[in-house]
């Protein structure tokens, strides 16, 4: 295992733990995106470019976007009820 792979695996573990430790939902979305980016690089280093492309598109664009929209929708409707 090369140093690059070891480093990327370590980064994946660190960013994955980061998602759990960040408790604020909006920041958590960006933590997920960062983890997705690290996983993309890891898959690329493991010579799986097809999986890397899927991960890049789904993990760093689609999933964070849908989460952000869901969070925005929940927050604003709650604020409206309070008012």
């Amino acid at each position, binding site marked *: *295992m090369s140093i690059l*792979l070891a480093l990327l695996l370590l980064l994946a573990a660190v960013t994955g733990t980061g998602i759990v430790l960040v408790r604020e939902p909006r920041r958590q979305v960006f933590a997920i995106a960062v983890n997705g980016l690290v996983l993309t690089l890891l898959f690329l280093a493991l010579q799986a*470019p*097809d999986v*890397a*492309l*899927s991960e890049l*598109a*789904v993990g760093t*664009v*689609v999933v964070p*976007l*849908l989460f952000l*929209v*869901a969070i*925005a*929708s929940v*927050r*604003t*409707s709650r*604020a*409206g009820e309070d*008012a």
Partner: protein
Amino acid sequence: MSLRLRLILLALSALVLVPGFGSVIGHIPGFGSEIPAYGELINRIGPAERQVANMVSAINFDIRGLDTLGEEFMLLAAIAGTVVLLRGQRGTDTADTAIRLPGRPLVPRAEAVTLVCRIFGPLIAVFGLYIVLHATVTPGGGFQGGVILASGTMLIYLGEGYAGWRRSVLSGWLDAMEGGGALVFTLCGLGPMLVGAAFMENLLPLGIYKDMLSGGLILIENLGVALAVTGGFTQLFLEFMEETREPAAGEDTPSE
């Protein structure tokens, strides 16, 4: 269940599971040590019998094409379910305004954002099409290209705003693309049966190895998947973005 009880349960189950877990870890092959037999077989028959350079496409669309057809319908069902759950009056009018937290300032869109989106939007669309068309040659394919194309449409929202985005991305077209893509894939499976071949048998001319138009039926299946994924994911974005609009007057907001 008290914390103490949980810890005891954890310790007990660890006692049972850890030895097995340890022995499995001890027996897994070394990292990247050997290529399994199946991989070698695929590497041999992919170029020889299908003229395909991207083995992942050869597996997904030809050797295990039936599995991908199943996934295709899984995607269709998942997106249809989301649309049924989220469809409502809210956000269907292009002039609907965004809901916002009271007291938060409304920042106008900078011209630079519009410019960047107008430059990169078409580039991303071209890149997505490139990924779709070169499925049998380079990494990627219908799914990856489709997701890239779908996320490219979000740049229209970012650059032109909700109204402009809704005017250019039409829901009816997306439905047709999604269903039509799945239909193309299904017909690719049933078509060969008309001439007496097996389901999804690759009867089309295979082309030249490493050429864009290689792989025969794989290319058409791939276009079907690209259509379905582009339509499906854009539809997903559309339904979710509608939820960020101000609810229409008189519409019941769900109480949860």
